[in-house]
C-alpha cells in the first residue's frame, strides 16, 4: 500500500491494514500494551535463563550458567537419596534370615520390590520378563526345580550359577550319547521311547522293554532308577509334564543325542548379597517356591 489514506472499517471504526481478501478486510487493531510487556518480560526471562542455567553449546561443551544446575547431578542426588532412604531396610535385609523375611510384611514387600527390579535387569533376558522361561531356559513360575525350590536353594543357585565360572558352581553334565558315540543310534531310539513311556504316554512297548537295561546302566545314575530325577545333580524328573528342552520325541531324542546343558552365570560377585536375597524371595514368591 502506498497511498497515505487511512482505511477505516465502517463497522468497528478501526483502522484496517488495507489488505482485503474477497472483500474481507484485515483490521489493524493495536495490541494491548501489557501484552507487549509480557512478551518483553519473556525475552528478559530467556536472557536471565541463559545467564543462570546451562544454555548454549560451545566447541568443547556448553555454558554452565551461574547456578551450576545439572540434571545429571539431580538424578545422581535422587539416586543417592533413594539409597539413603533404603539403607535401613537394606541393612535389615542383609541381616535377616530368609525365613524371617517371609513373615515380616514390610521386609517382604521391600524384598519383592527390589527383587522384581533386579530380575528385570539381570535375569529377564534369559528367563523372560515374567520368569516364564523358554526352550532351554527354566520356567521359574512352576513347581519344578532342577536344583531345589526352597529359598536357600534358590539363593545358592543365583549366587554360584550353573556350569558357570564360579569354583563352587552347580555342576552337572548330560553326556552327548549320540554325538560322542557312547550309544548306537538304535539304542538312542529305544531310550527315547523309554523316556516317553516314563511320562505316561503311549510308546512302543517292545522298544521300552529293550531300553530298560540301557536306562539302568546309562541314565539311572543321575535321573534315578525310576527316572524321578535327582536335585543333587540337577537331573530333571523324566516322569512329569515339564520339559526343559521340549516334550516331543524328537526333542527327547535330540537331548539324548547331544546332551544340551545351559549355563547360568554366577551372580555372587556381581550383585550384592542383599540383592541376591531379594531375588531369591522374589523368585520364590512367583508361586512355585517350596
Amino acid at each position: 500500500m502506498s497511498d497515505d489514506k487511512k482505511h477505516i472499517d465502517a463497522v468497528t471504526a478501526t483502522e484496517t491494514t488495507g489488505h482485503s481478501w474477497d472483500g474481507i478486510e484485515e483490521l489493524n487493531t493495536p495490541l494491548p500494551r501489557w501484552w507487549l510487556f509480557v512478551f518483553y518480560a519473556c525475552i528478559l526471562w530467556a536472557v536471565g535463563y541463559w545467564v543462570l542455567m546451562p544454555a548454549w553449546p560451545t566447541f568443547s561443551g556448553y555454558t554452565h550458567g551461574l547456578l551450576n544446575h545439572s540434571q545429571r547431578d539431580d538424578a545422581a542426588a535422587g539416586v543417592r537419596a533413594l539409597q539413603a532412604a533404603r539403607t535401613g531396610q537394606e541393612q535389615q535385609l542383609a541381616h535377616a534370615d530368609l525365613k524371617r523375611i517371609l513373615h515380616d510384611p514390610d521386609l517382604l514387600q521391600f524384598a519383592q520390590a527390589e527383587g522384581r527390579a533386579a530380575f528385570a535387569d539381570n535375569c529377564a533376558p534369559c528367563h523372560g520378563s515374567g520368569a516364564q522361561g523358554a526352550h532351554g531356559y527354566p520356567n521359574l513360575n512352576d513347581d519344578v526345580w532342577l536344583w531345589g525350590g526352597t529359598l536357600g536353594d534358590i539363593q545358592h543357585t543365583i549366587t554360584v550359577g550353573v556350569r558357570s565360572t564360579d569354583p563352587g558352581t552347580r555342576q552337572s553334565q548330560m553326556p552327548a550319547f549320540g554325538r560322542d558315540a557312547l550309544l548306537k543310534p538304535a539304542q538312542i531310539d529305544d531310550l527315547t521311547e523309554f523316556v516317553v513311556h516314563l511320562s505316561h504316554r503311549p510308546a512302543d512297548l517292545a522298544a521300552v522293554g529293550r531300553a530298560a537295561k540301557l536306562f539302568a546302566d546309562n541314565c539311572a545314575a543321575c535321573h534315578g532308577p525310576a527316572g524321578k530325577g535327582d536335585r543333587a545333580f540337577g537331573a530333571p524328573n523324566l516322569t512329569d509334564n515339564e520339559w526343559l528342552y521340549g516334550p516331543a520325541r524328537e526333542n527327547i531324542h535330540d537331548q539324548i543325542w547331544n546332551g544340551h546343558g545351559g549355563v547360568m552365570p554366577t551372580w555372587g560377585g556381581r550383585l550384592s548379597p542383599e540383592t541376591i536375597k531379594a531375588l531369591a524371595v522374589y523368585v520364590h514368591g512367583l508361586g512355585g517356591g517350596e
Partner: protein
Amino acid sequence: MNAHTQFTVNGVPKHGAVAAEGVLRSDARATNSAADRKFYQARIPIHPKRVHGTYRRIKWAVMAVTLAIYYLVPWIRWERGPQAPGQAVLVDLAHERFYFFFIEIWPQEIYYITGLLILAAVSLFLVTSLFGRLWCGYACPQTVWTDLFIYVETLIEGDRGARIRLAAAPWSGGKIAKRVLKHAIWIVIAVATGGAWVFYFVDAPTLAAQLLTGGGSLVIYAAIATLASTTYALGGLMREQVCTYMCPWPRIQGAMTDKEALAVTYRTDRGEPRGAHKKGANWEGRGDCIDCNQCIAACPMGIDIRDGAQLECINCGLCIDACDDVMTRIGRPAGLIAYDTDANAARRKRGEETGFRLVRPRTILYGAVILIVGGVMAASLANRRTVDLDVLRDRNPDFVTLADGAVRNGYTLKLMNRADAPRTFRLDFAGLKPRAVNIIGMGDVRLPVALGVGADKVRTLRVLVTAARGGIGGGSQPVVFSLSDTTQGERRDANAVFVSGGTP
C-alpha cells in the same frame, strides 16, 4: 506508509514548499514516526460511576452469596466417622479422595468430575441461550472480584469524578496515602482470596491454626502467594482487559446466543435521534436519548452500549440502572436500555407484539442434555457400592503348567472398601472347580475366604488358582471372582478368564 507518502498539514500538500531561503522542503519523513507507530495500546483507565437500581442490587446480592460460598464452604463440617476427614468439601490430594457432603469420590471415579464439568458447561450454555451473558455479568469470579475492587476504590478515592481528578492530580501526600491505602486493602483481599483457596485442599481449622502460627508448608504459602498475586493483578490492575483480551468466553457467545437470547440492548427505535433536551421542550420528532453519556460512565467495561452489541459487553445491566435513573428524572418511561432480544427489536420495527420465546430447539436440547447427564450421574451415585473388586489377570506368563499337568493362573485382586469403617469381605470364586487356591502371603486357602479391608482402603492380593488337568477344557474359560460384605449383603462380581493353553 513510506517515503512516497505525501506530507500534508491540514489537508494541504506541503510538497515543494520552501523551508528557508534556497531550501525546498522535502516530503521525506521517518518511517517510525510516532504517528505511524501505534502497534500497541496502553490501557485506557476506566472509572465506572456508581449507580443505584435493580441490577446493581442484584449484583450486590450475587456478590454476597458467591463470596460467602467461596469463603465459608471449607468451614462446613460433615461427620464421616473417625477414619475420614470431617470437612464437607475437601480435595484430599494426599490420600486421593474427593469429598463433597455425602459423596466421596475415588480417583478411579474421575468420570463424576467429568460429569460435573459437562453439567457446568451445558448449564452455562442453557443460561446463555436463555438470558445472554448472565454468567459474565453477575457470577463470573473475574466480575465479582473486579466489582469488589472497584467498590474499595470508590470507598477510598470517591466516585468517578473524584477518581478522575485524583488520577490527573500531581503526586502529593494525600494522593500517595489514598493510593497506598487502596492497594493495601486490595492486597489484603487478594491474600484472603488465595488463603481461602487452600482450605479446600487441607482441613480448614487445622490449616488456619498452622497459618496463623506460621507453620504451613512451603507449598501452601506458594499457592496462597500465587493466587493472591493473580487476584491482585486481574481484579485490581487488569479488570476489563481480562474479559476483552484473555477470556475465550466472549468469543464463543456467538455460538451460544441467538436472536431470541436476552442481551443488554439500547432501543434505537426509541432513543434516536438523540440529542440534548431543554426542560419543557417537546419530545415529538426526537428520540428519548438525551446523550448524557451516563451509560458510558457507569460501564465497567468502558464501552458505549448505544453502539450496539459488542464483544466487550458483559451484560451486567449497570447501564440500564444508570439510564433508568436518568429517564425517571426527565419524566420519560424507563427501559430505553433494557434486557431485550434482537427478535423483539425487529418485531417492534414491524409493529408486532414483542415477547420472549424461552422454549426453543436450542434451549430444549441444552435442557435435555442437562437432564440426561444429571440423571445418569444421580443414578450412578445412588447405586454406588461401598464394596468393589478389580481383577487383573497375569499375562506374563499367561498360564503355568505344573509338574503333574495341572494349570495355574495368577490374578491380582484389588479389594476396595469405600465405607468409613473396616470391614470383612467374603471372597469367592466360580466358573471352575479349582484344585487349589493360593493367596500369596496367606498360603493355600479354602474358598470362600474372609478378608479384612481397612476403612476407605484398597487391599491388593495376588491369588494363584490351580486347576487339575481333568477339570478344564483347554483354551480359556470365563470365571467370576465375587466379593461380598456378609453383614450388609453388598456384593460385587468381577469377570475374568482362566487360560489353559491350546484349544478346547
